[in-house]
């Protein structure tokens, strides 16, 4: 029934929706990191080293992308329990990532560099705001994982409809890559 035209369009509308949405998130962080570059070239910029804990959090989020891919794989194979298991592990890693990020903030403050408030320097404030916004995107992902996992409980055969978990894993991979970009940016470029 479908013509050539329609087969070309086989990408699911909701995937398209997500891709465009990721584009808008990219623009948000592109705006912030551009502002960072502009600001850095002006007076009163404080250079300081990133706390080591951000290296660990980077490893954790990388690991979580791997477990997320595994979850998708298991879902496609219709293996309920491993699927849910990998989702849970991914969510836990996501939470660990967030905790580590907060530890990073505390480590900076422990060095007597204020992130906000009257004594703050915009170098530290920028790092804080950018990282915090990324953290909120991870938080959104964790909530979505729980949502998808909860819904899968009522599914008879998860392999029949893997769209939710595919969308989820695309998003999760995206926030992972986004963090790697931000990490490289903050560590070496910015």
């Amino acid at each position: 029934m479908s013509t050539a035209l329609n087969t070309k369009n086989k990408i699911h509308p909701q995937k398209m929706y997500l891709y465009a949405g990721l584009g808008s998130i990219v623009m948000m962080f592109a705006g912030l990191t551009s502002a960072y570059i502009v600001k850095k070239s002006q007076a009163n910029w404080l250079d300081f080293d990133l706390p080591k804990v951000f290296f660990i959090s980077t490893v954790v989020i990388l690991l979580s992308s791997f477990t997320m891919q595994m979850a998708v794989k298991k879902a496609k194979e219709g293996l309920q329990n491993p699927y849910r298991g990998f989702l849970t592990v991914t969510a836990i890693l996501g939470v660990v990532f967030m905790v580590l990020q907060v530890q990073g903030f505390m480590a900076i403050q422990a060095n007597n560099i204020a992130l906000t408030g009257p004594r703050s320097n915009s170098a530290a404030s920028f790092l804080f705001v950018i990282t915090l916004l990324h953290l909120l995107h991870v938080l959104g992902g964790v909530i979505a994982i729980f949502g998808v996992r909860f819904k899968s409980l009522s599914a008879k055969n998860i392999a029949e409809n893997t769209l939710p978990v595919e969308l989820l894993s695309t998003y999760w991979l995206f926030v992972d890559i986004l963090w790697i970009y931000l990490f490289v940016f903050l560590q070496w470029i910015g």
Partner: protein
Amino acid sequence: MSHEAALQNHEGHESHEHDGHHEHHDTFLTKYVFSQDHKMIAKQFLITGMVWAVLGGLMSVLFRLQLGYPDSSFPWLESILGKWAKGGQITPQAYYALVTTHGTVLVFFVLTAGLSGTFANFLIPLQIGARDMASPFMNMLSYWFFFTASIVMMSSLFVETGPFSGGWTAYPPLSALHDASPGSKTGMDLWIISMALFVVSSLLGGLNYIATILNMRTKGMSMTRLPLTIWALFFTAVLGVLSFPVLLSGLILLIFDRNFGTSFYLSDIYVNGVGALSNEGGSAILFQHLFWFLGHPEVYIILLPAMGMVSEIISVNSRKPIFGYMAMLGSLFSIAILAFLVWAHHMFVTGLNPFLGSVFVLLTLLIAIPSGIKVFNWLTTLWRGNIRFTPGMLFAIGFVSLFISGGLTGIWLGNAALDIYLHDSYFVVAHFHIVMGVASMFGMFAGVYHWFPKMYGRYLNNSLGYLHFWITIAGAYMIFWPMHYQGLAGMPRRYFDFSIWESFKQFADLNRFISTVAMIVFATQILFLINFFYSIFKGRKVTVLNPWESNTLEWTTPIRPGHGNWPGEIPEVHRWPYDYSKDGHDFIPQTTPVGEDESGTH
């Protein structure tokens, strides 16, 4: 369930599930309030936009009253505005609050949400042949975020210290310091919350429009068979999705400066009565960059939907194919690209590096090329057409006129050397009101007059429509044309009272004239509203499927389409939408298969 319908259609163009629609009973709440039907959501956007247009217009009448009659007092003002109009004259603080709120709501709530929200929702599924949007649920959320943003903005009118008063562009420090002005307190908090909600609404909507246009077209509807309305709405959505997040970034940094003591935008500031602030190293110009990176695309977000609808309406009512369809597409595309590369033309006087400035001059002036192409194509479409002067057509032609007038002054402003003199003068006010404000309003009116029969199954009253058009176009030119002269004479924008300046006393009469016309034009819009609401219930009934004898798909639906749009299968498309006066046929709908001996098809 509509959701399902939409998706299944996408999969295989089978629509038997449609029968299920009739068994499903809508309650008042799901049909009119939390509706997921794109047509109802469109109407919700339209009517909310109209409420804001009236409020925003009323605000301009109030501040024009001050500009036209700076020495008079109007006791009735005090009775409606209270302490904001002590002794019958609005206070400077109230004046600034009115100007700011007028700008914000007209730009964002009326001409963005009211225009894209209405017509993207209404036309995309109908004209591409889809049962609904990619995600009807997100679509509903998009409206309710907008509604909440509206409520928050509305509530800022009633707080003790008044709404935000630092201009629609919300530059720091006025926007960043609570103590900078009364409007910078709670009013600004509400402004930020409202705008953040608005950004979310735009994103939810825009993502839907993109996904729907790309993935849910009916069989045969290739991208180059799309009506230009859809192309324009597509580029509008892309612009919004890529630029609103940057505004959000800017606002987030602003929130931190306001509430958490950071110094992104603030440095070396002394506030009367508070003392020197500790903020150091921030840059207010940084906000301008972030703001105008959205701000310029935003003006095209406002303009493109109008351009698209005007192209369609002019073609239908000239009974001629649109001239240069591919050129129209190309120019839409290049306008969309250039829109991201010219933002600093709003910042020529901020100490921008002159070499950088000249790059922005060049890129800005480049916009004249696609703009010129579009104007040329509209005029050539009209040329020797068999023109039907419906009210919708008149507004479309009015749009072209206004776009030319306002675009030409854009070329003046785009030259940094001229702009250094003209910046922040009434010349700029004239430029953007003509090219954006009034022109896009005309596009919106054109759309409402043209698609009202499809929206409500009744016609608007034509005589009232003609009256509305002629008074509005004449009035708009009478209001904004003289402002060019005022601006050239150096009259700055955003001043409360010009009567105390020796050099501007000569404009006292002119200002009174402008204010008077503004009131007349405002009153005329009430006429339109009466026509609109009366016709919804009492207008002449539409009795034919295709009253304008148009080619596009929306006219193949029943006169009052239900949720799902087509009762049977979605029609297949065999040609582009602009086969007018072809091979001896006045019009050939997109659903007509190509004939055997038909001349070249698209």
